[in-house]
């Protein structure tokens, strides 16, 4: 039996089904792609719909200009500095640019910043993977000592 104490400080693989749930739990993801200046990472609003991960960007940004047809990764995480714990989920796939008119209606993707951001990007979810880091056991986790 694995106790919470055994798990402390250990990275555990998150099953794919749970990875999708965690992806949907956060509005912001970070996209990494290989651009003219090397690998770059920026936050984007994202959503999961139609079996794919979607994000929106401005066609005039480096991301908008460079990601089409490229292999990209989209990362979502949640970190708690107090308990030194957290999780990270990554979707790796090919970025496909989709014109706003061709985006399926079920893709409900709002963006926070002002501006056009009318470039929709669909990431064919070739692979999803995730890891969770457990923090130290709290008093509530352990049985009273004798």
């Amino acid at each position, binding site marked *: 039996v694995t106790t919470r104490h055994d798990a*402390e*400080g*250990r*990275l555990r693989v998150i099953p794919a089904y749970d990875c999708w749930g965690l992806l949907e739990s*956060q*509005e*912001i993801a*970070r996209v*990494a*792609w*290989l651009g003219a*200046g*090397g*690998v*770059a*990472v*920026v*936050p984007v609003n994202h959503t999961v719909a139609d079996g794919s991960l979607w994000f929106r960007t401005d066609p005039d940004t480096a991301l908008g200009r460079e990601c089409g047809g*490229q*292999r*990209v*990764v989209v*990362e979502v*995480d949640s*970190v708690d*500095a107090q308990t*030194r*714990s*957290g999780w*990270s989920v*990554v979707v*790796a796939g090919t970025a496909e640019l989709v014109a706003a008119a061709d985006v399926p209606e079920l893709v409900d993707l709002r963006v*926070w*910043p*002002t*501006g056009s951001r009318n470039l929709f990007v669909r990431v064919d979810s070739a692979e999803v993977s995730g890891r969770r*880091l457990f*923090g130290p056991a709290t008093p509530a986790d352990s049985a009273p000592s004798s």
Partner: protein
Amino acid sequence: MTHPSEPRLVELPTEECWELLAAASVGRIAWTTTEGPVVVPVNFAVDGHSIHVRTAGFSSLVQKADAERVAFQVDRIDEELHTGWSVLARGPAEVLYGAAAQAGPQVTPWPHGPRSALVVIDVELISGRRLEP
């Protein structure tokens, strides 16, 4: 549709990017492999204009990132207020082992395990943006 109360993106000055980077304890390091980019959250420390990340000597990071250009990203997002900031630092990485890996600021990664290697990113480019209400 633009609305006066919608947040707007503002470029951050370089000094503020460094301050935000130095104050964070977790960032995301990105590097390139033949299968595409990889992103992993890591603990880190800032030393001058370089970023130090401690990792295992057999990790994919040390195998692929040595002498390559990598990216390092930190952010703080408020999902309720729809605000936040993001800083991106880029430059070549160098992997150090042994005594050389013990130099500089001490980084204690949250995950347990062997951490014999030190990845030092020599930051050549740093930029950041804040989403203001």
